[in-house]
C-alpha cells in the first residue's frame, strides 16, 4: 500500500472525518455505540452457535436454559446485577471517587 508517488503518499495522511450532527461529539459517540452494537451481535451469534453445538452433543438442556430462572437462581444473580448497575450508573452522579482537586 505504499507508493513513491507523492499524490498517493499524501492520500494516506489522516484526513478529518465528516460530521453530520450539530455537535460533532455525537458523531464520535455514535461510532462507539455502533462498534459496541457490532460486538454485541458477534457475541450473540457466537453464543447461539455454542448453544446449538452443546445441545446437539447432549451437553445442554435448551429448555432449561430458556426457562425463567427459579427463585433461588434469581436471588443468586441479584447481588451481581446490583453491583453492575451501581457501577454503570455511578458516573451519572458526577462525584469524584477519590479525594482529588475541586472541580
Amino acid at each position, binding site marked *: *500500500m505504499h*507508493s513513491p*508517488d507523492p*499524490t*498517493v503518499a*499524501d*492520500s*494516506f*495522511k*489522516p484526513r*478529518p472525518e*465528516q460530521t*453530520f*450532527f*450539530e455537535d460533532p461529539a455525537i*458523531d464520535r459517540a*455514535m*461510532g462507539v455505540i*455502533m*462498534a459496541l*452494537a*457490532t*460486538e454485541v*451481535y*458477534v457475541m450473540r*451469534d*457466537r453464543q447461539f*452457535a455454542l448453544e446449538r453445538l452443546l445441545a446437539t452433543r447432549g451437553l445442554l438442556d435448551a429448555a432449561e436454559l430458556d426457562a425463567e430462572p427459579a427463585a433461588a437462581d434469581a436471588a443468586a444473580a441479584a447481588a451481581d446485577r446490583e453491583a453492575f448497575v451501581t457501577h454503570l450508573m455511578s458516573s451519572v452522579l458526577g462525584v469524584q471517587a477519590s479525594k482529588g482537586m475541586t472541580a
Partner: protein
Amino acid sequence: MNATAPNLQTPATALSSRSFAAGQSFITAVKVFWHAELFPALRAEYEQRAATAQHRPETVDDVGSLLRDSTLYQYFGWFERHMQRFKYAGRYGLIAWHRQQRGELLGRLDEASNVELDPQLEMPRYYVSCDIHQHPGGVWSDDVAGFVYERAASTTTPLAGTKHADLHDRFTDVIGRESSSPQRVLDMGCGFGKSTRPIAERFPEAKIDAVDLSAPCLRVAALEPHDVRYRQMDAAATDYPDAHFDLVTSTMLLHEMPPPAVERTLAEAARVLKPGGKMIHLDFYHLADPFTRFIHYTHGRRNNEPFMEPLAEMDLEGTLERLGFTNVRIEPFEEAEGALSPGFRPWRFPWTVISAERA
C-alpha cells in the same frame, strides 16, 4: 491535527470466520434498514417540509436547506458514511479479514490465466487521489484488493440480492436488444469481471476483451473460466486499432472519473468502434427530481465518490454528438422488478443506460 490514522495493519487477535461473517451480516442488516426504512422516512419528512416551504425546492441547495436541521437526515448521513467505514475498515471489516487470508489469496491469484498486466502503466492522478467506496488503499494498490472489492460488491445493494445477477442480466438484455450478434466486444473498466461474465455468456461466439486500471481486480476476473482476454489498460487510451469493435460497454465506470477523462474515454470508444457499432454504458445519470439529485450528490460525498456529481452535471448527449455518435439514448434503467414504479420506496441508485451508435 494531532490525530493519527487508525492502524489497520496489526489485528490483535485472529478473526474467526464465524465472527467475520457475523460482523459483516450485522453491518449489512443495518444497511438494509437504512435502505428500506430510514430513506423512505427521510423522503416523507422532506415532502412534508417541501409542501409547507415558502418556495418549492428546485435545486440541490434548496433541498439541502430544507433538510439541514433534520435529525433524521443527520442520522441518515451518519449511517451511510460510517456503516460503509465499518464494512471496510472496522474490526470485522473486509480489510482485516483479507489481510489475515493474504497468503491463501495470493496463492489463488497465481492460478489466473488470460490476464495481461502492465507494471509500467501509470495510474491517473484522479484514480489514486481518493479511496473510492471508502476502500482503504482503493481498488488497485494492494495485491488482494480485487478480492476485497468482489466481497464488498456482493452487499453494495443488499436489497437486490447477493450477486447482482438480476441487475447484470437485465443490462445484458438491454445490450442484446441494441447489438444482437457482435463479433468483437470491449468491456471498459471491467473490474473483477462481474460485468464481463454475463456478456461473455450472452455472446459465446464473440471475441471479448476487457480492460481495467487495477491489476488486482483483473487477476481476480481472470480466475473465472470464461474466454475473455483481460488486459491492464486505461480505457481512455487503449492500444486497439481504429474501427476494431462492434460493441463497447461499461458498467459503473463513467462516474469514477472526472469529466475530461469521461470525454477521453467516450472519444476512445468512438475511435475503436466500427462505423455503425454500438456503445452502451450503465451508470448513474438520470435524476428525476431535486430530492433524488440531492441524495445522489451527497451519497457521492459520503461514499468517497467525488465524480458522481460532475458526471451528473455533464451534458452527455451534447458530448456524444460532438464525438461523432448518433442515435443517442439516455434512459432510466430498472435494475430490479418494480424499481422504477412510483410505489417503490427504498433507496436506489439512479441507474441509467447511456447508449449511442458510432456514425
